[in-house]
């Protein structure tokens, strides 16, 4: 996946300035940076939930044209996990997961149920399949949201602060699922403040500040010997 020369502004406010980023197949990229630096907007521009002012997104060698149809097709390949889960509250856990395959991939219900049960098993929530999201804890909701995204069999997964809305004791179960995914070779772009996760799982860490990529490199480098002073300042605040 490749992002080239991405620009985005909201009115006067420039949120992304010339962002370019290449993510290799199977690579896990963790994006860190202060609040308001444009991390969410970057993820949202990648799957066109936000329309960038300039720049291209290429996935699996295909340039994504800015046409409704192309974008919809691309979104099937790019899973997104949100900070606030955004599960569909009127559907059961299983209903949430089979929705994409049935509606978008036109999969037969039986087949979608099998696939979804497999994924729920994987995130450890098969026993909750007939519950409604309102009955789940935050950590469980986020694991369902991950299963829902995986049900589309995406090539890339985008995570926007997947554990930021969780009580501390629930963070681990979600990170556990994400680690498992990384181990299986999923291509991932993860915005997070979980530095432990970044150290352990990331192939590369990107530090964003003020609409730009300020520094990037392997986690040891970025965390242990950051070159840029803004990275240093940010990291010293976190620890």
């Amino acid at each position, binding site marked *: 996946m490749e992002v080239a020369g991405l620009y985005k502004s909201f009115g006067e406010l420039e949120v992304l300035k010339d962002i370019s980023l290449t993510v290799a197949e199977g690579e896990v990229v963790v994006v860190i940076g202060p609040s308001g630096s444009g991390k969410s907007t970057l993820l949202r521009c990648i799957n066109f939930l936000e329309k960038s002012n300039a720049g291209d997104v290429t996935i699996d060698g295909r340039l994504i044209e800015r046409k409704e149809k192309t974008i919809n097709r691309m979104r099937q390949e790019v899973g997104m996990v949100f900070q606030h889960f955004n599960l569909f509250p009127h559907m059961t856990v299983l209903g949430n997961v089979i929705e994409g395959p049935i509606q978008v991939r036109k999969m037969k219900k039986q087949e979608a149920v099998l696939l979804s049960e497999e994924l729920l098993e994987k995130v450890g929530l098969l026993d909750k399949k007939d519950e*409604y999201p309102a009955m789940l804890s935050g950590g469980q909701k986020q694991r369902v949201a991950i299963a829902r995204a995986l049900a589309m069999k995406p090539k890339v997964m985008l995570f926007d602060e997947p554990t930021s809305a969780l009580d501390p004791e629930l963070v681990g179960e979600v990170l556990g699922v994400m680690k498992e995914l990384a181990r299986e070779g999923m291509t991932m772009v993860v915005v997070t403040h979980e530095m432990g996760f970044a150290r352990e799982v990331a192939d590369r860490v990107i530090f964003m500040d003020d609409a730009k990529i300020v520094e990037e490199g392997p986690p040891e480098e970025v965390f242990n010997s950051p070159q840029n002073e803004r990275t240093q300042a940010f990291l010293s605040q976190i620890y």
Partner: protein
Amino acid sequence: MVYDFSVVVEKFPIFVPAAIETLKITAASILFGTVIGLLTSFCRLSKLKVFYLPSTLYITVIRGTPILLQLFIVYYGMVGLVRLDPYPSAVIAFGLHNGAYISEIFRGAIKSIDIGQMEAARSLGMTGFQAMRRIILPQAVKRAVPPLGNQFIIATKDSSLASTIAVRELLLKSQQLGSSTFRPMEYLIIAGIYYLIITTALGYLVHRLERRMAVSDRLG
């Protein structure tokens, strides 16, 4: 005693046809109004001026003028163009009237659904139409049920205005019998009881529906 309330009991059954007429006008205008209301709410939510402006004008006009005026415009005012019978006039006028209010109910309900729902649906690759139909509308309709129920009750009561154009519904029936027998109060009370029965039943049905739809909100 000026009043003879035994009349109320005795004559109660002869109001059944009038009550059916009231129910028919109400049901038809609610149905018509819901269809118009849903379409109008989409127009109002559209960014395109061709949809947004006419629908906004429609709502402004309906909400800013009396319902009785609207009824008279359809029944008397349109005579130059078409001559409509009382019953269709009432259904058209009340349907248009309710449509404006129902539209605002739907619009509010749709807007109240968290934007994250649309984004989650779109991020799975759903089209805007699919997301609306599968994700947004089911949640919005659920939220719209209480105010819709309220509007349906208002519509029931407003249907009495059709008496002014000689639709043989409850109020007209009670006025006619009341003046011919010199017992207006007794017959007005009969009509009142029928209205109460209808509105209470509607309220109960809406309440039942609300509870049934709340399944997914219930905690363990």
